[in-house]
């Protein structure tokens, strides 16, 4: 291992841990809230099962507002809210708040699109069997769209890593911020390149896992 990595190994491990926390919670939020939001975006559209212009427009607007902010400003803008939720606005834990917000907005959009490609016939079969909305969502929609949902989550996760690199601004740390602070601001180009290689490895692993899983569960 290169000397410089050995020298900084503690910091690097800590940074990796911080990234895992931020990205991990983002994934959780994307799944627990982003997926439902995306599902409603899909189902409340014109011509769909739960057609509801008001719900659709509101969700759509909220998602668009969050995505409209330059992410740095979103983080800054949310500071009072973050403080309200977490008691403080600084540190890795606090950084998960804006991260989860952008994660929800990001994944809900990709999930919405994944659901759009479920064949109409499957929805029709579900309705004809008297399935409730809940059943339609969990037993038909998600089942048929599952590989697209996994691939979307893969893409989102990689975006979350990218978003997390900004969280240094509020003391969130993380491996990307480490690369920026040590590599860029301190002119340690070698260190920066090593860190980026580490990040590339993570991203490759995530992408590989995502593609493999998606292919495995796609039986269509």
């Amino acid at each position, binding site marked *: 291992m290169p000397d410089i990595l050995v020298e900084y190994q503690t910091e690097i491990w800590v940074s990796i841990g911080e990234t895992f926390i931020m990205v991990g919670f983002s994934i959780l939020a994307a799944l627990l809230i982003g997926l439902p939001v995306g599902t409603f975006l899909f189902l409340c559209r014109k011509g769909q099962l739960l057609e509801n212009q008001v719900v659709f427009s509101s969700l759509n607007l909220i998602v668009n507002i969050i995505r409209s902010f330059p992410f740095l400003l979103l983080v800054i803008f949310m500071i009072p809210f973050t403080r309200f939720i977490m008691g403080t606005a600084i540190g890795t834990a606090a950084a998960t708040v804006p991260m989860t917000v952008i994660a929800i907005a990001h994944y809900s959009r990709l999930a919405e699109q994944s659901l759009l490609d479920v*064949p109409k*016939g*499957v929805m*029709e*079969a579900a*309705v*004809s*069997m*008297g*399935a*409730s909305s809940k*059943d339609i969502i969990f*037993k*038909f929609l998600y*089942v*048929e769209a*599952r*590989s697209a949902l996994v691939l979307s989550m893969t893409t989102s996760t990689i975006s979350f890593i990218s978003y997390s690199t900004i969280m240094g601004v509020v003391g969130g740390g993380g491996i990307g911020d480490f690369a920026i602070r040590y590599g860029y601001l301190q002119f340690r180009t070698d260190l920066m390149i090593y860190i980026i290689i580490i990040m590339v490895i993570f991203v490759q692993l995530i992408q590989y896992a995502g593609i493999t899983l998606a292919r495995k*569960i*796609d*039986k*269509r």
Partner: protein
Amino acid sequence: MITLNNVSKRFGSFEAIQSVSLSIKSGEIHGIIGASGAGKSTLLRMMNLIEQPDEGDVIIDGETLNHLKGKRIRQIRQSLAMIFQGYHLIGNKTVFDNVVMPLELAKTPKKGRAEKIVESLRFVGLETLKNQYPSQLSGGQKQRVAIARAIVNQPKVLLCDEPTSSLDPNTTAEVLEVLQRINQEFGVTIVIVSHEMEVIKSICERVTVMADGRVYKEIETEPTGVHKMEHSAEGFIKRLKSSGDINHA
């Protein structure tokens, strides 16, 4: 039990169904025939409101379905099983898991499910393929899964859109026998859309002939009964060699 009252359906400016009235008695096997594009599928799909009529009422057991919402319409639909012309199987579920759906949605006890499914798959001759996915099945096998799925929970009404279109005569005869049996044993009302005259003639008691989105005529018939044939390649050969004008008899 199923009554359509002057139902109409337009697609854009095209009138697919023009003021059709029809009534199907409880326990009857009712056939619908007509040329391709006559409106058979559309009519059938209105019976469980998968297709909303633009005008007219759909009445089942005295209850007008048109504007029903929520739990009630779901309950009714659970008792009206449908076999779609395009099968509409769930590609990511095995044959078994496709067939379990009606049971799951009706919240039948978990215990008896496996037997019901296996029985229903046996009816259509697919018990060995229960762990395959639809993409691994032949056309006729897919259609049989759709049939098994429709009958597994003993619905009150069975709406069948060309249920045997991809099946060879042997399998067709077997499926028809099954339909006749569940009709006789459990009093299931069956509506069959088919272009195969023999299918209609063998089990239907009344037949609606459709043309250009209208009912052309309603006819009472005497079902000729299902004639089972040797379930073997020899059977094919025998029938191939039999002479006589049998085209679309």
